[in-house]
């Protein structure tokens, strides 16, 4: 098994909005290969398993060390980063079967394994995921922060907008406007920052509507697939608390 040639099935689509089809590839095994090095092998030698020349496969990748979030794809049916998907490990998931690679299903396909994740970045805009500083001029240090809170927030700030959480979320799809766990977690991140908290209301308002926090159904796949182990479900619960309180205070304060 160990040194057998690697068999891969890739769901290919030549362009946006056209039909897709599965193509088989085969390549020699080398130690410590990951999915990316398999795809690179196809770039160098673009032939399918039967030896017929094909167009090389397009996919997104950049850092190859799981911090940039580019190379997300569905591998053996499960969404993850292809750089950290080591062949030795993923071959064990479906013994005897080829490794399957598919583009994410929740975003429009550009080509092959490339998808357009703009919707996620638009969500960040919608929830105002930033600290509204007055400007870059020198105003001295920022607010002091206790290290325990800082460490909590740090976990949330590692989100690389890779899309694993929304891909696995049953409530995030083409027909729904759900903003998804990543953006909700960013609301919690910025609302827990001493300066960011000053605009907490704006961010909460942004998720108190259609597609907002109430569209989460607590399937909790997000927290299981997040490559950065971000406590997304805790973020969702925190945002739920904050929005619930805001709803009630809005009701009685006006």
């Amino acid at each position, binding site marked *: 098994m160990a040194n057998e040639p690697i068999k891969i099935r890739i769901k290919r689509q030549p362009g946006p909005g056209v039909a897709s089809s599965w193509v088989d590839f085969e390549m020699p095994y080398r130690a410590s*290969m990951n999915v990316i090095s398999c795809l690179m092998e196809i*770039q160098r030698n*673009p032939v399918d398993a039967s030896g017929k020349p094909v167009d*090389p496969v397009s996919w997104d990748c950049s850092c190859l060390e799981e911090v940039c979030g580019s190379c997300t794809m569905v591998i053996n049916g499960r969404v993850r980063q292809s750089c950290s998907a080591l062949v030795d490990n993923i071959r064990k998931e479906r013994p005897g079967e080829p490794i399957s690679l598919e583009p994410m299903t929740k975003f429009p396909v550009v080509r092959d394994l490339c998808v357009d994740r703009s919707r996620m970045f638009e969500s*960040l*805009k919608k929830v105002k995921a930033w600290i509204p500083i007055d400007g870059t001029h020198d105003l001295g*240090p920022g607010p*002091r922060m206790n290290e325990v809170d800082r*460490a909590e927030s740090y976990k949330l700030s590692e989100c690389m907008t890779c899309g694993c959480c929304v891909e696995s979320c049953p409530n995030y799809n083409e027909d729904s406007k759900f903003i998804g766990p990543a953006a909700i977690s960013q609301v919690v991140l910025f609302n827990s920052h001493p*300066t960011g908290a000053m605009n907490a209301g704006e961010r909460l308002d942004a998720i108190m509507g259609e597609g907002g926090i109430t569209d989460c159904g607590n399937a909790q796949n997000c927290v299981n697939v997040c490559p950065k182990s971000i406590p997304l479900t805790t973020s969702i619960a925190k945002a739920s608390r904050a929005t619930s309180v805001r709803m009630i205070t809005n009701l009685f304060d006006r």
Partner: protein
Amino acid sequence: MAEPRVAVIGGGLAGLMAAIRIAEKGGKVLLFSVVPVKRSHSVCAQGGINGAVNTKGEGDSVLQHFDDTVYGGDFLGDQPPIKAMTANAPRIIYLLDRMGVMFNRTPEGLLDFRRFGGTLYNRTAFAGATTGQQLLYALDEQVRRHEADGKVEKFENWEYLSSVIDDEGVARGIVAQNLSTMEIKAFACDATIIATGGPGRIFGKSTNSMICTGFAAASLYKQGAKYANGEFIQIHPTAIPGEDKLRLMSESARGEGGRVWVPKSSSDTRSPRQIPEAERWYFLEEKYPKYGNLVPRDIASREIHRVCYKLKLGIGGGAKVYLDLTHKPREVLNKKLGGILEIYEKFVGVDPREEPMQIFPAVHYSMGGLWVGYETKADGEMDMTHPKTHMTSIPGVYAAGEVDHLYHGANRLGANSLLSCIFSGDVAGPASVAYAKGLAKGADSVDKSIFDREVKRMQTEVDGIAARTGGENPFKIVDELGYMMLSECTIERYNAGLKTTRAKLDDLQARADRAIAGDSGKVANQSLRFAHQLPYLVQLAKVMVDGALARNESRGAHYKPDFEKRDDENWMATTLAQFDAKANGPSLSYVPVDARFIKPRPRTYGAPGN
């Protein structure tokens, strides 16, 4: 004139900082990036950002930081810009703090600082071991805010191909390609800032991201821009060898107490924790008692190289040494180094908290890059607001970040890159606006034919490749290029080897010029894109090799065993490479280093016998 329009090419730290500053100055930013900017290579920086904030009671100062940087760069760096950068470092760290970067804190809630290579002070602010990611996200968020306000327009998934240069030699815009639709289009703008990072791809495997090809710099160089100090390539001493890339193991591992060692006998087959202290050789600590494992990167890399190749004392006789953190408590490691230890664990399958890591040097950073100028004030300090500061040799084009040559001399100190990227963007942004405001006529009044001409040139190049048959696969050629460069133009350089490599590069150039895409796809054609880039990469490789071949001395990252000493009399000079179409390669010239503040002194880091 309407609001100044500036094209910022690249969405890493330098590009984003420039974009923020331009937006603040009232300019309109067109931000181009080959990936969504949040995925730029800056995310890979791990250890931290330097700034002499001096909150550790050590008497650190910005002048000490300045001196460490100049000394670390082996006196090849022009001093006014370095002085300005180090002086502004505390301000930049505070700014990032205000932007919400989750820097680690002291128990009092103040910023924490750790040690890094090439200094004796705790001067490095850090956010776990993903500082670059955290900094990039902070700037990304600010840019998104300006984007929501309409001051920044993003062109993500667009690649810069070339600058539009008018008949007077002034840049009036850029030509870029949409990497999804493959459309090639011109964009008029008053100024351009190239912030496209380093050229790691030229070396095949490196610690760089796949997007760090050096293509934009090479393209501008071919259009006439000067490229400076190309031969100075930093080799990071500690990387994790890998099949697809060499993943960085941050210097912060040593900053937090990591120790580098090998078994005293290469035939020692025991697992590392079984080997008693007396049978381990801590070769860095032994040779450099003062700095220990925190000597600068060029020195550490050379020592590891020597131990493995000259002394044949690498682990099991191979090309690896131990980087050991197992003596540190788990909780401390998780809190301060979590991110990088997870990378090691994930990709190697061994827990570095339990077993020493196995590492080897890898190509990491280019000190050299597009030449940019700077103006000084009467007191000798850099004039940060002058329109010519940070401008390349092509009027209207600026460079910032790793792609500029300005701040690191012959060797960059760890945690100075995040600083130089942000600082250079902080300077180049406003300078470009000042330049644009001073223009007699804006880019919008330039004749359309100037733009059409450049689009046509690029379209012809790309169409030519798409139509070509019978050539070689570009990904195979770049493997050869990488192998060649790695073996002859990294840690140890010999003139004989460099000469052979140079000849081979000419051959490789011819093959790269005929490379085919082998992809009939109409959208997201990555092979076509790479086949277009490859000949440019070879051009840049020639700049590096020629620079190295000519420089008969050893300085910083440039080390020639046959010329072991630094030669200030002949070589305290910046290498300038300019494309010579006739030779199809660079012609070299030199300008003296601006060393007006600190006199050069021998760079020994306290090693005895030096």
